[in-house]
């Protein structure tokens, strides 16, 4: 599944990061690398973007970008 499908409070492990260019590089730089555990903290009031928790900090990304991140869901 992809990261945008993960519901708030659920955890996932990153399998692959898609996309290209600046966006992909930024996602990797911010620590969204394969095998990283992420949790979806919440969804913004207008339904987009989403807030993630990973590597001990909070990150926000847009749903269309989250869609490019392949994950497997994990039990908390």
């Amino acid at each position, binding site marked *: 599944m992809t990261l945008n499908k993960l519901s708030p409070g659920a955890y996932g492990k990153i399998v692959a990061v898609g996309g290209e260019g600046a*966006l992909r590089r930024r996602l990797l*730089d911010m620590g969204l690398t394969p095998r990283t555990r992420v949790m979806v903290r919440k969804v913004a009031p207008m339904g987009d973007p989403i807030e993630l928790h990973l590597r001990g900090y909070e990150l926000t990304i847009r749903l269309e970008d989250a869609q490019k991140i392949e994950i497997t869901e994990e039990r908390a």
Partner: protein
Amino acid sequence: MIIALLGNPNSGKTTLFNQLTGSNQHVGNFPGVTVEKKEGMIKGQKNMTLVDLPGIYSLSPYTAEEVVTRDFLLKDKPEAVINIVDATNIERNLYLTLQLMEVGVPVVVALNMMDEVRANGDSIDVQMLSGNLGLPIVPISAAKNEGCAELVLKTLEVAREKDRPRGLDLCQGEVHRAVHAIAHIIEKELKATGLPSRYAATKVVEGDPITLSKLNLSKSEMEIVETIVSDMERNLDTDREAALADMRYDFIANACKDAVKKNGNSRELQRSIRIDEVLTHKVFGIPIFLCVMLLVFFLTFNVIGKFLSDGFSMGIDWVTSMIDVGLSNLGINEAVHSLIVEGVCVGVGSVLSFLPTIVTLFFFLSILEDSGYMARVAFVMDKLLRKIGLSGRSFVPMLIGFGCSVPAIMATRTLASQRDRRMTILLTPFMSCSAKLPIYATFSAAFFPDHAPLVLIGLYVGGMVMGVLYGLLLKSTLFRGNPVPFVMELPAYRLPSAKSVVIHMWEKAKDFLVKAFTIIFVASIVIWALQSFDARLMMVSDGGDSLLAAIGRFIAPIFVPLGFGNWISSTALITGLSAKEAVVSTLAVLTNAEVSMLPQVLGAYFTPLTALSFLTFTLLYMPCFAAVAAIKRELGGMKYAAAAMIAQCGVAWIAAFAVYQIGRLIVGG
């Protein structure tokens, strides 16, 4: 000796910079880009200049900030780099440190917020971590000014001994093999570029376009490089960029494994999560944000700022009248008298009276920024601005634009990317500033007494709609490239430090004062001269005979298709450039009426339709000189500012033309 300060955004970089340099700072831009460059002398040291580089997460080649930082490290070759690292978020912060090690400059790591780490019951074995990374590390707390003296001494030592990061092999396995193989291949070309070998090889493996074009490898060499990289990609089952990011994070994880002891989320993070349950709440998030902004506006424009502004302008009036009396007593030449009193004092004085409002506004804005709330605003409002190719971060400067364009444009400094900053600067003047209200009020009273609120709302909404259309146009022309991705950290909420807030306010005040005494000073004198003299350089008694009126008559035909081709309105539009309120007072002077009587008099020059067209034009045409000065500074050159102003006048002309011509079809005029 030049020392660079580098670190992630929200790592306490500004606080450390302020601690080390005090208020002795110089703010400018890096040449050719609108990326802020701050410099200051380190306190208690002779000849140690600290350069504050942009807050970035990585040295990748994509944003202007990242490229500027890379260039500075490689070309200006600072004697040492202080890399500030947030100890409560160490893994992600060390990612940049690793890239710095690849560059091979002498680095000292300032491990910030150690007080919070201790308070959380966590621990970092600084000695062990320093050994694992091969870098000197000084634990500090910038907010509490702990460890800063030791940091300066360590930096001095590292700079003197040119103590580069020890040659620890950052890379392992497949990446290691590729980096070393490529280092041999590019050996020859490397000499000409002056790049560090290790850095260049890593960048080639990564496929970095800037480094590749600098090296200018031959075709056969490129083929070998590509073979090596694709072998690596196949063996690792991933691509080159992911392989390197992965490798760096693995290295960090190993370096931290035994050195960093952490029990779950820090207290600061837990507190932030609780605060955000309210501030970014699904239902209350947006109303809370609007209330916060409303409160800031109310306090700035109605209470504190207004009180200070009124007092300030009373002072200016007093000084002006004293000068007036003094000059009269001395029997100074009438023209010089008029120049000093009506030109300089009134012109600069009217702009100066904005100063308290601007300082007050920045007091609130820097609190919102430093506390971490601005990032939440971007999170909550992002969806709205995405359609025009911006992110939620641009929302606040645009909102401030409804008060005054000058601080709004100055506030774009907080935006994370040059592209967003430039685009926001160009869109902000479309938000109708408060100085235009008297114009709207006068014309509504004259022509639409029963529908004044409707006209007012129509103008404000019209400005926003034009802003959106202009944004869409910019997005598909000048700013076509990919927008900087919206991948943003939500930093833990922190209490803003008083020192940072004060320095920030002082910076903005200084910036504005410099403007007031340069560009606005000159503009005031020019407008005064045009108003006071006729073509034979004789002082005029009737405003209608002045050079300004002559220019007004000259350009009036441009406005004939818009319905207000009379010289009085074109002259008023010109004086409106010094300050928008001047449109009303000029109309009063030229029609020989009191301002309060204007609504009765204007009927002779405008019909309701041409009045509407005139209002549309005033809403959209170029902003006042103070705003132009701000735009010039933020866009980094008069050329860009001039182009922006011409474009804006064009937009205003087209919109007013449409209003007038369509209106004519409807009312049959």
